[in-house]
């Protein structure tokens, strides 16, 4: 019972990591294309990252 739970939590954390990585990468791309919009992009990036992070932590604490 313990091991599948840990594996599941690990999978979710990998997913969350990939998600936050993609958000960061795409935000970099977006800022490089439009440096003048960097403020707005950063805000949106932080919100999206925070939402995914919540799921990651929920998985960590559920395991």
């Amino acid at each position, binding site marked *: 019972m313990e091991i599948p739970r840990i594996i599941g939590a690990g999978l979710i954390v990998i997913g969350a990591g990939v998600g936050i990585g993609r958000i960061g990468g795409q935000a970099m791309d977006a800022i490089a294309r439009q440096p003048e919009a960097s403020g707005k992009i950063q805000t949106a990036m932080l919100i999206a990252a925070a939402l995914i992070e919540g799921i990651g*932590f929920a998985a960590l604490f559920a395991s």
Partner: protein
Amino acid sequence: MQKISVVRIFMTLALILTSLNLVAKDAENVEKEGKDGLKTEIKEFIDHHLLDSHDFTLFSDKETGKHFGFPLPVILWDGGLKVFSSSKFHHGETVAEVDGEYYKLYHSKIYKTDAEGTIEYDDEHHAINAKPLDFSITKNVVSIFLIGLLMFFMFRGLAKSYKKNNGIPTGAGRFLEPLVLFVRDEIAIPNIGENKYRRYMSFLLTVFFFIWFLNLLGMTPLAVNVTGNIAVTFALALITFLITNFTANKNYWGHIFWMPGVPTFMKIVLAPIELLGVFIKPFSLMIRLYANMTAGHVVLMSIVGLMFIFKSWIGSPLSFGLAFALSILELLVAALQAYIFTMLAALYFGMANEEAHH
């Protein structure tokens, strides 16, 4: 050139010496048991740090068994109000007798026991003794009072200096004014809207500075972990939840129970999901702040604990360097988490106040 080669030789020698030292330790293999004991001790220390406590211990001397700090008042409701000092518990070592009743501190929680302080367990080793209602002024409560007082005087000073100095802040106000403007211009107005942001500003400013200052207090050697306590973040999230739902307009509830612009079948499917979302939003606020701060504290203390596990001269600079870098990261996280909490709260308030746009 000369200098570099000298440094290089020194470094190589140092490396060889260290590796020899490590190999020697491995070969001896005598302190294995001691090392495991040390690991559990560090783990216990971290676990203890994450919990709230009934006394404000600054540091303890393990060899003499002395604790340096001060006791805090314990307030219990157990068939009547009982107020006594937490020094009666002697850090959980003795049973406190109050008006003929006996109480014992066990894993930072107060249980009712008999004169010997017997704790009974169920099958999973959880204590099953009766627990009195605990309204004590614990370490976290003291920290919250402290920050509340600090915020009161700082912002009163800011308000006073506006009056005295023709609208130009002085002293600490010069530091606070840009932050207040930041919360207004970057968080409240873009998310809630020009017309309605004013009635949420008091809450947003309070929650921003409260979380930020408490996060920073957690980085001091006072070793308090207030925002990493799920009860505290629960209260913050609950207030956000209540404000969101009590100030919501017709349009918001319409979007939850009868989503406009989708087929009737989808309306029925979406209603329970949207209703669940009402509770998930504050829940995620609670978990995010709690987990971030707890994780920060655990990692930082584990890195400091490495120093004792390594038992070699390299452990101390290594763990110092890592802890230093991580502390700087944690200072950033302290501000970032306050910002994100405020930002998402503002976002939810904005959602609750959106006007129909069809």
